[in-house]
């Protein structure tokens, strides 16, 4: 890009080379976004790591060096152990179900039928609504006295299920509601992937006598696998640090049955002002995200295909 003429035309005779101009313009354009990200993401992350080695008393007002004390205390913290356990369970089960259901919904919405555009719009609704509203809507639907699903179950089995007092029930509810909320988003991306697969591949396979299941496993899946890996990694990273749904649906209960790391950070940091301990949990979370991200990148390299 050559903008030096414009400047000299204004009488500002600076002898700056074209190359230098490119750098200056690049920096000017990128700086606001980069500075914003630096100030509100990179710097706070560094601070979280620093704070994890410090101890706070009297509601965060008195601060001192703590060494590894926060981390040493982690394994003894009942809430943390529960949180690690359920975070892993929650993320693994959710993502697996979302991948499967996302694929099924994408197949469904890729078929030809009347009102397809409307069905695709409906599919976007769970993604578009606030998670906290979804959490409360389902909590109300599953209410042990007046809930809709509770009523249906009672019609079939004769007794009303009490979901949020039972650890397994609460865990299943959290995972399934999370799948309800996010599988459609997965489907949106998969659907776009399906639409990119050339139609004649399927026609050729039909001529060769491949049935629908074979066509899926031998054409669709191999071509869409990079997308599956990308979305899987993205969903794991994103859900490992999410808390809206659990905050609304169970607040981590009963006991610590549905406690997750993100909720633990929130409680310790912003409710009890245990900044140091909260940061230590935050660091664990960061480590988890880094490991998952690396695995995702490695997997992606393995499965990269071109067509």
């Amino acid at each position, binding site marked *: 890009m050559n903008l030096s003429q414009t400047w000299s035309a204004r009488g500002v005779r600076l002898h700056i080379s074209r190359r230098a101009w490119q750098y200056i313009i690049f920096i000017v354009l*990128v700086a606001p976004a980069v500075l914003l990200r630096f100030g509100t993401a990179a710097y*706070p*992350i560094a601070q*979280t790591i620093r704070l994890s080695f410090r101890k706070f008393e009297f509601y965060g007002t008195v601060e001192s060096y703590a060494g590894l004390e926060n981390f040493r205390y982690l394994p003894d913290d009942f809430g943390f152990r529960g949180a690690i356990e359920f975070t892993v369970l929650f993320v693994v089960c959710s993502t697996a179900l979302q991948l499967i259901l996302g694929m099924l919904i994408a197949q469904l919405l890729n*078929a030809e039928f009347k009102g397809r555009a409307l*069905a695709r719009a409906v599919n976007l609704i769970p993604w*578009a609504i606030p998670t906290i*509203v979804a959490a409360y809507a389902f909590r109300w639907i599953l209410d042990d006295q007046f809930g809709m699903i509770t009523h249906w179950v009672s019609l079939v089995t004769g007794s009303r299920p009490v979901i949020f007092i039972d650890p397994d029930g609460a865990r299943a509810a959290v995972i399934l509601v999370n799948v309800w909320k996010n599988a459609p988003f997965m489907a949106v991306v998969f659907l776009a992937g399906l639409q990119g697969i050339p139609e004649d591949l399927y026609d050729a396979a039909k001529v060769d006598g491949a049935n629908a299941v074979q066509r899926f496993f031998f054409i669709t899946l191999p071509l869409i696998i990079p997308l599956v890996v990308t979305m899987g990694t993205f969903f794991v990273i994103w859900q490992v640090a999410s808390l809206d749904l659990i905050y609304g649906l169970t607040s981590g209960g009963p006991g610590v049955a549905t406690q997750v790391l993100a909720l633990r950070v*929130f409680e310790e940091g912003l409710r009890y002002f245990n900044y140091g301990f909260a940061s230590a949990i935050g660091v664990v979370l960061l480590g988890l995200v880094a490991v998952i991200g690396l695995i995702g990148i490695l997997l992606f390299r393995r499965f990269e295909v071109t067509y």
Partner: protein
Amino acid sequence: MVSRALTRTHEHSSGHSSWRHTLRRVQLYMALFLFLFVILSPFFWIVKSALSRPDQLFKIPPVYIPDATLENFKTLAEQVPLYEYVRNSLIISTATALVSVTLAFMAAYAFARIAIPGRNVLLWLFVLTMALPEIATIVPLYRLLAEANMLDTRTGLIVVMSSVLVPFTVWVLVAFIQQVPFEIEEAAIIDGANLFHILTRIMLPLTSPALATMVVINFINAWNNLLYPLAFSATEQSKTLSVAITEIFQARAPWGRPWNLVSTLGVTMVLPAIILVLFSQKAIVRGLTRGAIK
């Protein structure tokens, strides 16, 4: 196409396969019905709860079609500063959408068009910050905002929410800008257009559908954000609807939880999202999938 023609004749030659065709249609519509039922039933439930009188709400078995009333909306407006919450949510979401898309547009233009060495690495690094969990920054952010006197302000929330949305927006916009042929800008540069002109007179109109899409997506994201207002807001000066609904949920009515009010506010919060989705479904999908599929 020959292959397609072959399968067609094959299918239509036997009456057997037309029966199978019907079966497949039936299966398709059953799956579709199940899908729509699962997606939509929670909405039926909260809309029904929002419109029914409290005495019809807490009944065993539930009243599925209540006498419709807007009483709950009135009660809600009386019990919480609804006007302030709606105002805050609207201002914060709109400003966040505009700020994030503006900053992302500038950065994306540079990443897409200015060929300096290492720009791809820089873009990758920048987009990777998307993976940094917000919750792991919440304590230092709280202290930073406190130092800057921005706790419990709409400005503070706009800043932090915009920041979260910028990386994805840049990623999507870079892809869109790269599609625009460079010749148009080249001509303008030769004519002596400056950078501001190129961005506002050439790039902006050419990429405006993509920018509008990202404004909608980011508006929805900011509207739905719970973590930041929950952590940083204290009064109706900056509290949003998402915080309001958690407070109503935690309140106690004589008969237990005020599900009528939770549902009413829930419906209010869902409404803009549904309207935006119904009116700009295709654009939203294009924006969302642009990041994953090239």
